[in-house]
């Protein structure tokens, strides 16, 4: 059994009288410790996949498994616990709490989960050991995103989900963030899934899941993924 399994997952939204199948029979698997890129154009359903995988939304039908747990069968309350303990989430716009310092933002997450990693260590790991006491507004975008990654990692999640992590960043900073994520995956063994519309990222992934019209149109595995810093777009 794989670490993550999507088996015939469907998600249907009712928009007035029209039924929209955002995800329409999606099947894929992710293995433990893999660096995965889920790629697809806007409207292909990748955000829905992210939502369902992150426990923010439940599928209309089908099965989602994570580390042997049947996520698709969890109720509201259990989903909260799932998000709390099993998932680390990195937002496109970082979504840091403006009123907490970098360190406190990390602690905010680690405070609520079962086996947190020390916040300062995680911050040092993302290269922010000297900015720990700064407020988000005192940090650059890249630094803010690093804080966000640290916040996700500190929870010691089973799965690190990133929603367009470079979307709000400039090219150079974006690459550094990608590099950080890749290194994190390699060095800590965390399973990392990145959702993006940018197909250039596929080069650095262990596994690439291409989403098109609500389905996993293609799943590729890279035997030798490129280093994030070498990626051009």
């Amino acid at each position: 059994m794989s670490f993550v399994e999507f088996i015939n997952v469907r998600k249907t939204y009712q928009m007035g009288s029209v039924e929209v199948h955002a995800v329409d029979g999606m099947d894929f698997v992710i293995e433990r410790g893999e660096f995965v890129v889920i790629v697809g154009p806007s409207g292909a359903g990748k955000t829905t996949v992210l939502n369902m995988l992150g426990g923010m939304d439940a599928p209309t039908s089908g099965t989602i498994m994570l580390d042997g747990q049947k996520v698709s069968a969890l109720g509201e309350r259990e989903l909260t616990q799932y998000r709390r303990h099993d998932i680390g989430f990195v937002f496109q716009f970082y979504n840091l709490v403006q009123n907490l310092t970098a360190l406190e933002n990390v602690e905010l997450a680690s405070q609520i989960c079962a086996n947190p990693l020390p916040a300062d260590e995680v911050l040092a790991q993302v290269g922010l050991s000297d900015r720990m006491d700064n407020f988000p507004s005192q940090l650059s975008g890249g630094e803010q995103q690093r804080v966000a990654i640290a916040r996700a990692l500190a929870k010691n999640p089973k799965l690190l989900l990133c929603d367009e992590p470079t979307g709000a960043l400039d090219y150079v900073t974006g690459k550094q963030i990608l590099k950080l994520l890749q290194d994190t995956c390699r060095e800590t063994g965390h399973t990392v899934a990145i959702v993006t519309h940018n197909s250039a990222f596929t080069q650095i992934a262990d596994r690439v899941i291409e989403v098109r019209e609500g389905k996993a149109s293609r799943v590729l595995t890279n035997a030798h993924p490129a280093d994030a810093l070498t990626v051009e777009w």
Partner: protein
Amino acid sequence: MRSAFVKDILRSIRGSLGRFLAIMGIVALGCGFYAGLQMCGPDMRADADAFYDGANLWDIRLISTLGFGDEDVERVRAVEGVEHLMPSLTCDAMARLGTEQVAVRISSLDVDAAEASHDDGLYAVASDDENYLNRPRLVEGRWPSAKGECVISADVPRDDFGIGDTIELLYGTTELDDLLAIDELEVVGTVTSANYPYTGSFGSTTLGSGMIDQYLFVAPSSLAEDAPYTEIYLTVEGASEELSESKAYEEVVNATKNRLEDLQGEFSAARQAELKADAQEQLDEKWDEYYDEKAKVDKELADAWAELTDAAEQIADGERELADGEAQYQDGLAQYETERRNAYKKLADAEAEIDANQATLDEKKKEWQKGADQLREGRAAYKKGEDELLGQLGAKSASEAREMLEGSAQQLDDGISQIEEGIAQIEAAPAQAQAAIDQLTAAIAEAQAAIETCDEGIAVADETIASLQEQLAQIPAKEELETAKAQLTGAIAAIETLGEEATSEQLAQLEQLKGQLAQVEGALEGRAQLEEGIAQAKAGKQQAEAGKAQAEAGLAQAQAGLEQAQVALAQAQQAQEQLPGLRTQLDELKAQRAQVDEGLAGLDELADAKRTLDESQAELDAGKAQLDDGQAKLDAGRKTLAASRRTAESELAKAKAQLDDAAAELADARGQLADAREQYADGLAEYDDGKAEAEEEFSDALDQLNDAQREIDEIELPDVYALDRTQSEGAATYHADAGRIDSIADVFPFIFFLVAALVALTTMTRMVDDDRVLIGTYKALGYGTSTIASKYLVYAGVAGVAGATIGILALSQVLPFIVTSAYSIIYTIPLHPFPLPVSPGIALMSGGLGVGVTLLATWGAVVSSLREVPATLMLPRAPVAGKRILLERVRPIWQRLSFTWKVTCRNLFRYKRRFLMTVIGISGCAALLLVGFGLHDSIWDIIDRQYGPIIHFDTTIGLDDNAIELDVRRAIDYLESTGEVGGIVRVQNENMQAGAAGTDETIRVNTVIPRDASAMAEVITFKNRVSGKPIELTDDSVVITEKLALKYGLSVGDAITLFDQDDVGNAVGDGHELTVTGVAENYVGNVVYVGRDAWRQVDASTPVFSTVYATTTPDAAIRKGITDELHDMEGVSTVIFSDETINMYRNMLSVVDMIVVVLIVSAAALAYIVLYNLTNINIGERIREIASLKVLGFTRTEVQAYIFREIGILAVMGDALGMVLGIFLERFVVTTAEVDYVMFGRSIHPPSFFYAFALTLVFTGLVILSLRHKLDRVDMVESLKSID
């Protein structure tokens, strides 16, 4: 294009209906509350005006202390400005209504006009008679058409008294009979009158409790025939067109009032002259009558007197004659008595003399006989004695016996002396012998002792000699010593000659030699001494031996003497045996000698006796001759006396008969005279009675006439008062209450506007922020700043106008309705029917303020965003930077806080505007709530603190002004006897006016003078409210109540002036200044407690102390029994139980309680709107943050806590601030709403703080509850969205 913009506005309203409604709601509340409260006062005044105009109520009321006549009425009618007028009679009286005694005001009613009038059931009473003023409206029953009928007020209904019952009039301020023809009235109907709009008191009076409890209208037929009008009611031209008591109204009325006041002197003088003239005319007639009658009676009396005088003269003559006869008779009688007494006296004297002489003679005879007897006895005794003596002696005659006796006497004397000598010698001999023996025995003992002493001396000498010789034997012989001495001396000399040359050895030797020489010389000397001692001892021994020999010789001699002496003693003892014999001889001789002496004495006695006897015999013989002569003379005297007695007695009997005849004649004459005198006395008494009666009658008549004359002369210039409605208690109280509502209306809405502005500002700021990109887009599209701004201004304006319209329309009906219906509890002024008038001025101002404030807030929110260039507007507004806060510096606390708490704390200070808005908004609501509860406390404290903590008695028994000490005592005795009444204290109550330096205004006060100042503490607690210190009340104290002190700014040591008051409650006179000694806590009424000594400064006479305070059982039945009993007592005028007063106040105060409810409800609404709106915005601004937290796995509870904790803290802070604001606001409202007559409680009770605080939190909780679902609905997907 234009229409697209308009469409956008419309859509934005539709799209954010919540926001639109929030603005609308807050504006509606603010404007409505302001307009509604502002309209209360005007509505109240308008109601009153309609009521007054409808009843054709007077504008000016004229009162004269001497009343008015018809001429006065015409005089007033002629004054410019007087429109219509109605003279009337009004008087105050104490009356019994069923079981209660109350003060009533009786007024005459124009019954014809009343019956012709018809009312609209609300305000107006229509009548064709325009001079029919103050038209009462008949509520029930009928008008009082007949004499002895009345109508009473329908506004103070009583279950036990009403139509068909009878009112008994007891007494009035003036003599009721002068004004009324009846003293009982039957109630035939009930009315309501615009003249008495205030049911709390229909006016003040000097009777009873000082307040009019009921008013009556009677038909003119019930008035006394000559009763004058006591007042003239009049309306002023043009006054009814103005709002009653408005400025314009006052101006119109005052013009006429001033004219009337100018004419006051004229009215007074005319009235005085008129009254005097009428009275004088009547009196003059009386004077004439008096003089006629007096002349007639005087003549009758004079005739009677002449007759009486004649009779008296006749009686006097008879009396004189009688007296003469009597005198003659008395003289004769006296003469007779004297002669009779003299005759008898002479006879008695002579008889007495004879008797006395006889008695003396008899006595002498007896004495003579006794002497003769004694002589006879003496002779016999003498003979016997002589015979005996001679017999004894054996002699024949006396002389022979004498010779014999004298010879034997000589022989006896010699024998006796011989024997006595012998006896003496024998008795002395043994004693002499014994003495010699004793002497010799002593000498022997002496000698023996001497011998012994000498022996001892010899022994001692021997011993001494022996011992000395022994010592001598031990010393070397004298020669040896001499030789040694010489050798030594030689040796020494040899060495000494060497002098200086002597060696040291030699010198040592010399010393040694010298020592030896000294020893030798000592021995020599000792030898000499010893030898001398031996010699001395030997001489001593010799001496002793000589002594011994001498003693031994003495001893021998003495022993020989002793033997001789012992022999002599034995001889003497033998001689003793002869002594008894000798003594016997001596005794015999002595006895013989005594017999001889006896015999001699007997002989002498006999001789003396013989001589005496012979002398006595001679005397006796002479006495016998004298006695016989005396007896003869006496017998002759007795015979002469008997003859004279007989002659005298016959003469006296003749004289006595003549006198008895004269006495009988006199008795007859006396009887006739007594009859005559009796007749005369009767006649005189009759005359005196008649005269006294007539004089008294005339004197009385004269007094009456003089009194009447004096009264006429003393008719003073009457005081004429012109009063307007401000001096009518009911109208003035209502007007003041309306003014108070105005004051409150000026304060409270301010808070609402402030909060409304805050809400609008916050809401619009949020809206503009939401529309940043849109604004940027409009700008980019080329829309002008004002056009874009207009969108928000129009949005806010529409919301504001809509809110203001709705709020004003609704609350301008609701609030005045609540307030006026609250006041209708105590005022008779009818409620305005719906819809209530909406004052356009107030509505416009209120709406303008509300909309203006909203627009201003909107402009403030928009203007900053519009200044930015489109490019920046297109970008998201930079989030407000996080900041460290002060609390972080307190590490120990900060580190302990969880992150959610840290965020909360930082957020509180991060959004300063939101912070301020929320805190101010909530504090406003909390303050309003506190004011509401605080007002309630203050109001009920009036009763709760007054009755119980301050006033302990619950019963006040008032006696009327004429009560005397006995009446009071009787009432108290009764109270004590019931056993249900305690704590009885007597005081004097005076209704007075009080003023202070620096102001002309006076205020009605109840002056209480305790009879016993120290007892007052039992029924009233005097203490300072703030410090709680008790205030001492003594006979010198002047303690005023707190409200009075506040009004005039008085404190201890300041002066308060007490004035007497006239019938209409104006201060009169110069007043009496007293120094305040204490300011006591008090809530109801203004009271001055004056100690009886201090009171003397006001009134020198001692008061009756005619008011009794007591504590009575709460049992209603017993109370009623006591009340009935007291009312039947002489002088008792009022019996008031505090419960009735308390209930009256409860009624009055429930009015203000209604306003409190309005306040609380409004505050609650405000709190809800503010909190909901602010919280809503708060959530709206933080949707993204909330979504992120959810994604991070925060549970529902954690997310809610994260957001609502902040709201909660803000609410608590605002709440706390609100408590502080509320304290000040409440104080302001309390002082504004207070009336002169009561002081509100000055403190907000702790539970009120709790309620206000807790209610605010409850509203917060409700808001949080209602917004919870909104948090739940926040979609996590929001977190993924870009910031736009």
